[in-house]
Each structure stands twice: as C-alpha cells, then as structure tokens.
C-alpha cells in the first residue's frame, strides 16, 4: 500500500508541481494517474522512490515514511520504468536486466540466469540477450525496461509513460502484455500516462489529474465513462466527442459499431 498524505512539491525555480495531494494506492492494485502534460504526474510518481522529495507532506509505503529509508536501498527495492526507458547503452540486454540484483550483491552468474527468465516473462526472445539496447526496436526496449524493473522482484512497480515513445500498434500490444503480467504478478503498481484510452485499458482505478496534481475524479474506468464527475473530466475523456458517441450500423448484414463520424470502430459481439 502506498499512501500520499497531503504532499506538495515546489521546485527551486518556484514552479508548484503538486499541491496538497492525498491518495491511497491499495496493495496489488494498478492505479493509473492520467493528466495532461505538466499536471505533476511524474513528480508524484518520483516521490515514491525518493527521486523527488516532497516540500511538505509524507509518502508512506506500508505505513512507513519513505523519508526514514535510505534512498539507495529504497530505490533498489522498487521497480521503476522511466519515461524514456533509459537503458544503459554500453551493457547488453541481459546485463541491463541483471543490474539491480547485482547492485544488491547477487552474483553475476546468478543474476544473469534470473535475467534470462525475466526476458521470457516479458515476451522477449532469449536470442536478444547479448544485443545492445541500440540494436533493439523501441517496443523491445520498453520490454527490457519492464524486465529490469521486475528483476529485484519488488512489491511496488512505478511506470512513467512507459509506452510513450512507441507507435500505436506496438503500444496496443504492450498494453495487453502488461495486463497479462499484472494479473500474473499482482504488484502494487502506479502507472502514469497522459493517454486516457491507455489509462482505461490498464488501470483497475484511474485518477484524473489537473494542473498541480489536483484530483478531478478517481474511480474505475467504466464509472468514469458512464458518469464523468465534472466538465473537466467529461472534456478530458472526450465524453461528448464523436469518437466516444458510438452507434451500431448495419453493413451488408453485419452489425458494425461506428463512431460519431461514421468511422468503424469494431463489430458488435453476437
């Protein structure tokens, strides 16, 4: 369980990124923070592993204040997938995944063996193990990033727009994979994105943020779609837009679901 207790963050240059944010991420759940650029998502996420220290308020993990924990130890115990992946370009895929266990003192041979298993887990061919990050496609790199975050078998997983840089098709694949992983592993996960559709696809619970880390609505995806809390949320999720107002159309005897502009979205399951 991660608890944000009235946290605020003002950066040295005066920007107030987050103001009085309180929220509890229950254990084994996936919570998605979604909001437009600059709404403070990354700042909030990084408070959990102390990459950012709040100016006021506290963050607690299983009721322990993270300020009491050594930074380096804390970070080694939390899986973190960064906004820009950030693999080490001079290490092979395998060694990238094995980094954290090795930092924690696991022997190289052992760490590598475990890393191989993780590659399978995130759906990467073992043949890629000896490649370098630059020799992988964007989607493959993202998978390595996830494998690295899982390597220390952390209870908590922080993911900062992990699929931001990949194209829509690969992105859709990765989203499906992630859901599979989550159902298998059941980590407490905080996932950050500014794509509402992605949030709906991934989150057990979605938190819609406006500037300064203000919570506009926090609920399950279906309930947010069905009952947006206010105009901000309705606009943000495009509740009134053509792409969300669907209807069913008959095309040569089959029921095609089309959006407000008549563009096909899918078929009605029969």
């Amino acid at each position: 369980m991660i608890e944000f207790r009235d946290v605020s963050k003002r950066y040295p240059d005066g920007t107030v990124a987050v103001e009085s944010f309180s929220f509890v991420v229950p254990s084994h759940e996936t919570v998605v923070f979604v909001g437009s650029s600059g709404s403070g998502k990354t700042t909030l996420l990084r408070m959990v592993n102390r990459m950012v220290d709040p100016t006021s308020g506290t963050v607690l993990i299983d009721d322990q204040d993270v300020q009491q924990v050594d930074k380096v130890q804390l970070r080694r115990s939390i899986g973190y997938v960064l906004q820009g992946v950030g693999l080490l370009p001079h290490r092979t895929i395998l060694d990238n995944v094995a980094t954290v266990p090795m930092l924690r003192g696991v022997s190289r041979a052992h760490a590598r063996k475990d890393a191989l298993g993780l590659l399978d887990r995130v759906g990467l061919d073992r043949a890629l193990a000896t490649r370098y990050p630059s020799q992988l496609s964007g989607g493959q790199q993202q998978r390595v990033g996830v494998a690295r975050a899982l390597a220390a078998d952390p209870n908590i997983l922080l993911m900062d727009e992990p699929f931001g840089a990949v194209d829509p098709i690969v992105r859709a694949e990765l989203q499906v994979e992630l859901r599979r992983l989550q159902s298998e592993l059941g980590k407490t996960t905080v996932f950050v994105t500014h794509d509402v559709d992605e949030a709906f696809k991934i989150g057990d619970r979605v938190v819609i943020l406006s500037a300064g880390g203000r919570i506009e609505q926090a609920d399950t995806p279906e309930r947010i779609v069905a009952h947006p809390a206010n105009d901000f949320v309705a606009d943000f999720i495009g509740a009134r837009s053509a792409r969300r107002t669907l209807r069913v159309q008959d095309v040569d005897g089959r029921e095609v679901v089309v959006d407000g502009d008549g563009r096909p979205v899918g078929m009605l399951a029969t």
Partner: protein
Amino acid sequence: MTLVQGALDWLGDPANWRGLSGIQQRLVEHLAITGAVILVAALIALPLGILVGHTRRGRGTVVALTSGVRSIPTLGLLTILALNLGIGLTAPVLALIVLAIPPLLAGAYAGIESVSVDAVDASRGIGMTEWQLVRAVEVPLALPVIVGGLRSATLQVVATATLAAYVADAGLGRFLFSGLKQRQYSEMLGGAILVATLALVLETALALMQRVLTTVPPDTGRP
C-alpha cells in the same frame, strides 16, 4: 625538392642517430617530456572535468577558463616561466601542461555531459549511488570522448614540445633550432619529419585505443 632529399639523407645517416645528442636520444627525451606532461595534465584535468560533468555545476566557468587558457601564447608563457624558474625542463613542462589541460578538460566534461540524461536518471532510479553512477555509467560511456581529448592534447604537446629546446638541451626541438640558426635546413626539416612521424604513431595508437574503448555498438538500424 633538394631540401626534402637533404632531410631524407640526414635522417638516413646512422651517425646522426647515435650519441648523447643523436636522434635516438632526442626521440626518447621528446617522448618522455610528452608522457610526463600528459600524465600530470590528465591527473589535474580529468578528475576536474568529470566532477564538472557529473554535477553539471561550474560548466560556464570551466568553458570560459579553457577558452582563456587556450589563447595564452605558449611562447610568451614559456619566456615568463623561464625568466622566473631558470633554464631546464621545468619551465617548458609547466607551459606544456597548461597547453594540455584545455582539451583534456573539455573532453572530460563534454564526454560526461554527452551521456544520455535518461540513462543517468534511470541509473539513479534503479538505485545506483553517485559513485557507482560515475564509475559504471558515466565514465565508461564518456571514454571515447575523453580519449578524443587525450588525442588532441597529445598531438599538441608532441608538436609544441619542440619549444623545450628554447631553454633546455632536450627534445627534437634541438634539431629545429640549431638547424635554423646554422642554416642546416635539412637537419631542421628532418627534425620536423621526426616530430610529425612521432605524432602520427601516437595518434594511430590512441585512435585504436579509442575504438577499443567504444563500448556502445554502432546503431545498426533495424535489428
């Protein structure tokens, strides 16, 4: 082209290679001066450059400083130092160290800074200490650029170490000065060829080293 022929003849004469002021001895002296200068300059410049690159502090100062130091005329510096320190190798070695510091420093901080911000942030994020970050991520990734700085520094020092002969009985510069003053132009040109060859050899060695140290494979595009 008789001049070049003369230089080649001078180089080819085994008598010129032997003895205390022979080519062999001068080559050794020249290399020793270069090596000592680079070593001392590196001990000063590399840690400083790495620190600046890692902390991202004081970059402006260092840039201004290196550009300023770079514009100090070595000949002027040498004369001032010599007037105060006397003849011998101290003054030229000091002047050469000053000359070698800017490229080494620039190589170090630019190398560290060129390491991708994402990789650095990620390394912190997965729990590396600052020291581990420097040792295992920043320095290895910066090495090609650092060695690039080393290459320029070496090239400059090898060429400029000839000035040592202005105030000391050492180095290949002796052939240049005495050749000039005694109108032995073949000797002078021969000396220049020796300096350039030495530079070529060192340059090639460092280029090889740079290639070996480049741990990141080239981007091969689609896998």
